């Protein structure tokens, strides 16, 4: 591995993701080349076979996620990496992973869209694609790092959530965070908390592949086990056989949502900067957090009480957190490399406080001045 042992390393965001994936115990990667995520696949192709795992470059993103799901059902931790156009192709299998309950991690290093857009340039325009990218009612977990250190830490967390909840988990990078180099602290192996999916203990007579436990998650049985198991992307009963009964479908889909929704508070990760006395609150995630921090420092120098809420968990959306943290603020600023996707979600829960977006397209970073200009203009009003 690039970082054979613990210590401080100077790494690219994408590489930190790869290093963390292997430390999480990932043994399978299937993907299709796409910028700005390619380093994650290249890293896997070099380091997975050495770790005893398997890398394969598939014919497209549809088959990449299909292979990841197939691998996951043998009990192996599996992941893929892509960018917006690839994620559009993966949409079909995001739903499949939800429905068969295959733990897996999907990394999307966001770039400017729509369509091919600006192939190598960063964006944050896939915020809603993470949540609603596949059809049908479902719930999703999406985490987003704002530094290379967080790339490492949240990759570990993404695998842990995937294993715990038996669901696909997104890691929402962007072209800036993925391509950026920073110093990272890599902990000792035994200091990294790694979660493995709960295995089913049952007799052949009693075993039902989709019988949920008390946390609404069915304990796992891998293909190859003497307990025969079934994975089914169609509506199914707890036995894994198809079932189109209305009541059964209602129960199944509600369980798939509730198994995540019930633990929303634990899943909701975030960082706060000077929110205790903030009159102006900046809510950000990913790359937009960096200029926000610089702008906050500058504003505080000038006596303006600015604080930041950085969302590390985008989905499930932290409604209660937004409601409580915005209650004290007089003004909310939302910098994003999109035309206000996060902003529209915040508006729903912030007690009709004024919410101003600082939005940029073109694949260029938001600058601290962009935020300060809007800040000064708004306070003068």
């Amino acid at each position: 591995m690039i970082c054979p042992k613990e210590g401080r390393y100077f790494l690219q965001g994408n590489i930190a993701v790869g290093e963390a994936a292997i430390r999480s115990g990932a043994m399978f990667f299937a993907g299709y080349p796409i910028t700005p995520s390619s380093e994650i696949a290249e890293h896997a192709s070099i380091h997975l076979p050495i770790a005893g795992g398997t890398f394969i470059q598939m014919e497209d993103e549809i088959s990449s996620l299909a292979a990841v799901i197939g691998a996951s059902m043998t009990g192996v931790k599996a992941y893929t990496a892509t960018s917006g156009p690839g994620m559009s192709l993966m949409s079909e299998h995001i739903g499949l992973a939800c429905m068969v309950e295959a733990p897996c991690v999907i990394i999307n290093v966001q770039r400017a869209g729509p369509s091919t857009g600006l192939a190598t340039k960063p964006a944050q325009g896939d915020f809603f694609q993470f949540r609603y990218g596949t059809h049908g009612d479902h719930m999703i977990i999406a985490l987003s790092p704002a530094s290379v250190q967080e790339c490492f830490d949240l990759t570990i967390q993404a695998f842990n959530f995937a294993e715990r909840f038996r669901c696909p988990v997104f890691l929402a990078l962007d072209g800036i965070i993925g391509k950026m180099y920073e110093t990272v602290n890599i902990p000792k192996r035994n200091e990294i908390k790694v979660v493995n999916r709960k295995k089913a203990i049952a007799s052949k007579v009693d075993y039902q592949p989709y019988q949920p436990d008390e946390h609404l998650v069915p304990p796992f049985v891998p293909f190859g086990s003497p307990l025969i198991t079934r994975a089914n992307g169609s509506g199914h009963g707890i036995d894994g056989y198809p079932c189109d009964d209305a009541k059964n479908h209602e129960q199944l889909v509600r369980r798939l949502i509730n198994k995540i929704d019930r633990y929303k508070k634990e899943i909701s990760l975030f960082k706060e900067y000077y929110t205790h006395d903030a009159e102006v609150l900046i809510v950000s995630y990913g790359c937009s957090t960096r200029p926000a921090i610089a702008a906050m420092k500058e504003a505080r120098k000038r006596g303006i009480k600015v604080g930041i809420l950085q969302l590390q968990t985008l989905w499930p959306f932290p409604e209660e957190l937004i409601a409580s943290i915005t209650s004290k603020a007089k003004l909310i600023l939302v910098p994003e490399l999109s035309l206000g996707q996060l902003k529209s979600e915040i508006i729903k829960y912030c007690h009709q406080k004024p919410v101003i977006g600082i939005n940029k397209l073109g694949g260029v970073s938001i600058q601290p001045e962009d935020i300060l200009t809007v800040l000064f203009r708004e306070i003068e009003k």
Partner: protein
Amino acid sequence: MKCSGRKYIKTESLPFFWCSGCGNGIIFAALTRAMEENNLDNKDIVAVTGIGCWGKADDYLTTHTFHGTHGRAIAVATGIKLANPLLKVFALVGDGDGITIGGNHLIHAARRNIDIIVIMSNNFNYGMTGGQYSGTTPFNSITATSSYGHVEDAFDVSSLVKSAGAGYVARCTIANPHMIQQLISKAIKKRQGFRFIEVISICPTHYGKYNQMSSAVEMIKDLSERTVNFKDIDQIAPEDLGNKIMVGEYQNQEVEGFVHRYQRLKQSILPT
């Protein structure tokens, strides 16, 4: 060898959901018998299906199963096999599933010689959705979406898979169930590489009805009369070959499958 295939069949789910006269039951029986002939253990088998009539086959199996998305069974099977090479992975695909929407996965899996067995039930149309044309529907034939006669030509799937590099490719028809079993059995015995069995089937409910052959008996008889084994090809006048269905082994080569190659690669890079 006489086998019932019973230990792989979920008998309480019978009868099959397929229409009367459908060829899928014949293929299913041949598949489970071939499994038994080779003493496969239920726990070692994963049957991966897509969506379509033949994609319902997993409902009747007592092996591990994965019922996934339309056209992607081979891609799912690839992940399963590579993550656990000890498993015997079967992908059961139809013509719509396997070569129309999923054609790209089929040729790439063949090229890579992924160590799985693909059994394609080819009945020339989409039965589940009402009999529309697929990538194997013959020129001029009538389907729900080619009422005036189909304007396109069909894929010769076995030739295509052979050209893509598969180690084992064979075609047979449901008119000869014993041959289906034999070919699947041979594919199992080969142990590695991509193995592809194309079974020409019938859909009396849709394709037959649209093309004035509504009885299954009539359609099987027609298949039987039009079947020519590669071995006997010399006895047929070239002008008569157009209408014939070639059966037999299109390809039977010893190849090194992906799993073995990748394992060799891993060994070669292990730190000494």
